[in-house]
């Protein structure tokens, strides 16, 4: 654990096989309840997926503030916009494949653009939760495996995009979304992932956290790939000194931290459970390409659709494991002049 940033306050048994695994969406459910306790204007809309998105946890506590929409994600987006215009902080939950997959235009017009340029206090406070994102949805197959949602949401002006790395961070992100004005997109998967952060781990919207220090390559990851990145860095520790950054907020990008990091390491690897274009990789490459070009290798889904399988075997088949990150790091370091 010597290179793990102490200020990150990660769990003590990070590299143990017994590390606790928790569904990231559990953090969403807990966060909703806490946000609802803090602020009576918090409401939750759901499109017939209340149990699996954990919206149900809020529903049980605040039934009068829970709105069942049925299978109608387009309606849900614009309804949430209307409720927000009438003073509510509206969370809307579904699977990412449907929301923002199906209702992109409604989010664009009635949420993002509708909020764009608003005076303080008049923002459209809609918080979109895309659950079951990525290939780790598993057996349901490609129709339900959203792999382009971060890209979609990142292109909308004013939209904050957050991909939490575990359940604990997801809870913090949910509460932060409720407390920060404007539209948010929160994205998380279905499977059990290692719970790597703790209550003490710093979390601030728009800020990259360094989880591991290193001088030879920067791995920028989010979602479940943060854990894979830490494992990869550990595997490489006698060969390449890797830094691991948790970039939960894809937008707005914390360019300052990213820049400072690559000025030291001179190369970067991005890692995400998303298409390798348009998401985190896109955001990092755009920023660094313009400000401080360094070799970049991307770990992500390589421009293809998903398929059925168990999350572990899919991670292997699609090249999203720690071993894939190891290979990418070696390639990035080789590209340094």
């Amino acid at each position, binding site marked *: 654990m010597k290179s793990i940033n102490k200020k990150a306050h990660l769990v003590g048994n990070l590299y143990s096989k017994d590390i606790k695994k928790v569904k990231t969406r559990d953090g969403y459910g807990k966060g909703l309840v806490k946000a609802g306790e803090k602020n009576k204007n918090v409401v939750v809309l759901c499109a017939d997926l209340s149990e699996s998105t954990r919206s149900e946890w809020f529903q049980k506590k605040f039934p009068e503030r829970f709105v069942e929409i049925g299978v*109608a994600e387009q309606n849900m987006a614009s*309804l949430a916009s*209307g409720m927000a215009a009438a003073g509510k902080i509206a969370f809307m939950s579904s699977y990412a494949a449907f929301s923002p997959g199906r209702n992109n*235009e409604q989010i664009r017009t*009635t949420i993002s653009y509708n909020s*764009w340029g608003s005076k303080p206090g008049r923002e459209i406070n809609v918080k979109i939760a895309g659950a079951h994102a990525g290939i780790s949805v598993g057996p349901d197959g490609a129709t339900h495996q959203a792999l382009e949602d971060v890209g979609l949401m990142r292109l909308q002006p004013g939209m904050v995009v957050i991909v939490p790395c575990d359940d604990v961070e997801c809870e913090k992100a949910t509460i932060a979304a409720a407390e920060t004005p404007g539209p948010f997109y929160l994205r998380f998967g279905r499977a059990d992932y290692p719970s790597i952060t703790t209550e003490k781990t710093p979390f601030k919207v728009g800020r990259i956290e360094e989880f591991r220090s290193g001088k030879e390559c920067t791995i920028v990851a989010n979602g479940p790939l943060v854990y894979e990145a830490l494992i990869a860095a550990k595997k490489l520790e006698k060969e390449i000194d890797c830094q691991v950054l948790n970039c939960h907020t894809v937008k707005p990008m914390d360019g300052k931290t990213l820049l400072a990091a690559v000025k030291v390491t001179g190369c970067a690897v991005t890692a995400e459970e998303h298409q390798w274009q348009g998401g985190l990789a896109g955001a990092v490459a755009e920023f660094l390409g313009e400000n401080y070009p360094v070799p970049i290798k991307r770990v992500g889904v390589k421009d293809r659709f998903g398929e059925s399988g168990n999350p572990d075997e899919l991670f292997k088949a699609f090249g999203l494991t720690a071993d894939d990150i190891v290979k990418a790091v070696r390639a990035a370091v080789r590209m340094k002049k």
Partner: protein
Amino acid sequence: MGKPVIKPVPKIDNILKLKLLANQIRQDIINSLAAAGSGHSAGPLGMADVFTALYFNILKHNPKYHFWEGRDRIVLSNGHICPVLYAAMANAGYFPKKELQTLRHYGTRLQGHPHRSTLPGLETTSGPLGSGLSQAAGMAYALQMDKKKNRVFCLMSDGEQECGQTWEAAMFAGKNKLQNLTAFIDRNNIQIDGYTEDIMPLEPLADKYRAFNWHVIEIDANNIPAVINACNEAATIHEKPTLILAHNIPGKGVSFMENDYLWHGKPPTAEEAKVALAELKAWRERIIKDKD
């Protein structure tokens, strides 16, 4: 100094005054469209009487206090008819009337399709069809949740009844008995490519909404008292949203535009605007003489 006590502006009950206002709004529409050089003509002219009734008789609002919590809300779903919304708002005192000449120009607050945060007094951003009823239902639901009495009025086109989302929202409003929601369908039978019943038959619209648990009123929407009566009737309906099927003549008041779908999506040229304004001014004289 405490908070100012905000009161709604007084209603205009005099039908002659309302007719003159509707005529003025039609003239303002023609002027702003001619200055813009693009935009939609027929829809705004057809709905001028509805907007006049709403802004000057029905709506609880105060143009000086855009964000007043006690206000009723207008949600224009078919954003392309915004010239009538802008003209009604300017005449009601939301912004200087001369600004109508900036419609669609660079830097204007009067965007080609309405943008909520650009122009104070707008409740939503709209243009892409089919989303307004959802937004209005969301507002109505939230207001009902807070036990507030404000009404929400949604204006839709007939063409956007072809959008699936409209029916998702209709289902939601019916289920949740949104009695504070009143929706209009601008039933002028035209859309860009032709007549609605040729493009995609919509009838029986009234029965469709009734089947979704709505109260339905059919009116001649070029008759201001009929619009007012329908809105007042809607206020008395409990546990159901109300749909006002607003039959109107697209292009109303300008003979060469009336009932011609080719005028759905284009503005008058300077010459055509002159003719249109002459017709509208002649109509105004007839109103004053109480002949029309």
